């Protein structure tokens, strides 16, 4: 019992906690890799897919980007499309943080760490998506401030690299600190994490805004060159992020039996309802401008939605996205979506897939078609690109699983301590 009194006396004790943090991580890794047969199968499959992706990427580095289907006309493809979506996922993770901290939603506090874990995994996926898109990953160090030669503050890509890494560090700090304190059985000191939580809220908005600026700042690409892009990115992020978190909570409930309180999911669905409506309104007004005005601005949209000059490559993609988004939204608005059930799960899946297409294949690719000299060269990802992207997703899930396991273990432990205390 002496340890528990110690906890009450000294909320923070600098030297010791710092030294034992690595031990905590090591212990956590051990705990997070314990599980039943199902768990090991899951981890094995994810590892296998990641390895297939790593192998495809290694071959791409050796043979050149010629193994992708990108060309000088469509010079960014599936990788950057997926990157854009993952940035949204990372930013959307923060949608649990806002109600928890700004509105002091008690129940949300309990699950907010799930959102942060999703953000961490998503940022790692972003970084990987950019690295695999580089023609010369061996020169990666050129991007490191002070060692390389960064074009700051002019290049939006430099900004993006900085804000993404900053976001990763902030979230790692918050998750790590909160878990560690729980593990030590101490009360987290607000001084050490609340400022970072608020920083992470602003930062989440910045990562997606800067990513939108990456595209919308290019005058030569009329399809992207719209002031609505950043707000649209944010709105859709605040759908995909929460939707993903709802799915994660469901999976946790099925696999670990950990039932989160019903409040948070309900709040998230309310957020999705609003964000998705705003997203669709903005999409509609964008489409109106594109099609009613026509001209160069409309050329890409025309190709995307209806095909042009006998090329229809993206038409099935975008209509799938539109249908998924509309049906998903309609489902979210059903009263039954507020209850635990399958409706919200279907709605989440539809909206996630819809937004993945809308922001990726439906936004990045048509920016290049027609090209700046109005040539139409189509693009569809090659097998290597699919493998690499699949690998990145598998790795992301692997990371997320480990993080969630760690969180669950620490929480379970804390509960048992609480019980001991009561005895």
């Amino acid at each position, binding site marked *: 019992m002496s340890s528990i009194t110690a906890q009450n006396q000294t909320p923070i004790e600098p030297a010791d906690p710092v030294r034992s943090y690595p031990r905590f991580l090591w212990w956590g890794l051990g705990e997070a890799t314990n599980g039943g047969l199902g768990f090991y199968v899951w981890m094995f499959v994810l590892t296998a897919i990641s*390895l297939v992706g790593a192998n495809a990427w290694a071959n791409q580095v050796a043979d050149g980007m*010629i193994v992708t289907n990108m060309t000088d006309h469509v010079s960014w493809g599936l990788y950057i499309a997926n990157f854009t979506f993952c940035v949204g996922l990372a930013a959307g993770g923060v949608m649990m943080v806002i109600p928890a901290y700004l509105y002091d939603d008690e129940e949300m506090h309990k699950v907010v760490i799930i959102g942060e874990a999703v953000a961490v995994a998503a940022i790692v996926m972003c970084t990987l998506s950019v690295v695999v898109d580089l*023609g010369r990953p061996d020169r990666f160090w050129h991007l490191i401030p002070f060692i390389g030669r*960064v074009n700051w503050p002019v290049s939006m890509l430099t900004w993006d690299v900085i804000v993404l890494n900053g976001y990763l560090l902030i979230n790692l700090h918050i998750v790590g600190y909160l878990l560690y304190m729980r593990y030590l059985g101490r009360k987290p000191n607000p001084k050490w994490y609340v400022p970072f939580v608020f920083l992470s809220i602003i930062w989440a908005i910045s990562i997606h805004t800067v990513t939108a600026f990456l595209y919308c700042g290019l005058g030569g690409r009329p399809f992207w060159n719209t002031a609505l892009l950043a707000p649209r990115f944010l709105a859709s992020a605040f759908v995909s992020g929460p939707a993903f978190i709802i799915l994660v909570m469901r999976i946790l409930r099925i696999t670990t039996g950990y039932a989160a309180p019903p409040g948070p999911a309900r709040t998230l669905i309310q957020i999705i309802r609003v964000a998705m409506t705003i997203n669709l309104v903005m999409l509609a007004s964008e489409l109106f401008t594109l099609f009613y005005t026509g001209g160069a601005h409309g050329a890409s949209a025309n190709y995307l939605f209806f095909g042009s000059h006998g090329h229809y490559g993206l038409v099935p993609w975008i209509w799938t996205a539109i249908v998924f988004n509309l049906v998903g939204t309609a489902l979210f608005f059903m009263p039954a979506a507020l209850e635990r059930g399958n409706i919200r799960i279907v709605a989440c899946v539809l909206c996630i897939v819809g937004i993945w297409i809308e922001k990726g294949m439906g936004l990045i690719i048509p920016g290049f078609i027609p090209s700046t000299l*109005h*040539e139409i060269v189509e693009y569809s990802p090659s097998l290597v690109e699919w493998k690499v992207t699949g690998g990145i997703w598998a790795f992301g899930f692997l990371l997320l699983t480990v993080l969630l396991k760690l969180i669950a273990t620490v929480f379970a432990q804390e509960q048992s301590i609480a019980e001991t205390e009561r005895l």
Partner: protein
Amino acid sequence: MSQQDAPTGPFLPVLDQPSTRRTALKAAGAALGLAAFGKAVSPLMVIPENVSVDEFLQQHYKEFTDADKKKVFARLETETKEDYGTDVTISDPKPIPGVRFGYAINLSKCNGNGACMEACNKENNHHRGVDQSYIRVLEMSKGSMDMENGTTNYDHTVPQDDKFYMPVQCQQCENPPCVSACPIEATWQEDDGIVVVDYNWCIGCRYCEAACPYHARRFNWEQPEIPADEVNPDQGYLSNRIRPQGVMEKCHFCLHRTREGRAPACQEACSTGARVFGDLNDPDSDINWVLKHKRVFVLKEELGTQPNFFYFFDS
């Protein structure tokens, strides 16, 4: 029990995990996973084969001392000899003080024969497999300046009566969006207005290619292939030396020629006299004569890129 021991106290029995069968299995799993990972990424071993330590650590062009330059150029010459079997000289002509290059094309004269593209391909050691060149010639319908009605892959005798021809290459923008885009300053504008790329600094992110409004940039999707007897041995570090795989390249107004008073290869090859090249700062240059006496226009003026590349028609 002291405070020091608190973290390892009784309520954390798991910290000292006994080495159970599970731990051993996990260790085996981790070892297997690592081995599989090593195998999966083994194709990466070509990097140390192809990229020497010197190349890996090579600094940005602008940070070269004269000694660095000598060393780097010598290394590149040896590597070219090894890979392509040709003796080449790599030079680094500097911008001529006070000179600003401009280019103009007389659209009434250009007949679309494509000699400029061919000359570019040879002069600049382009990948032979794909007939690469920095120039694209658009066949446009008379009566329209809309590029949407143009095509680059025409394949018939030229000129056609109802068409005119418009070559497009890097416009050497005064205000180049490609340069602002690059995250690592691998591409920049020189004092004579030419936008260049350090092929050994570029990481191949292709953001500049997305930013250029004139389709002027080319990426090396694979290692360029050039037969030994076709390699142009007269090479500039910032211009036509053979580019490595995975980096960006673009038209550089043949700076290894033009900074030494010669014409760019595309102008030399053009038999119609459509191409006018020269120093914008020299009042007596051909290019200034055109700017003064013809009504010239630039492409996509509304974007504010301010090209140093002009088009005009004979009246």
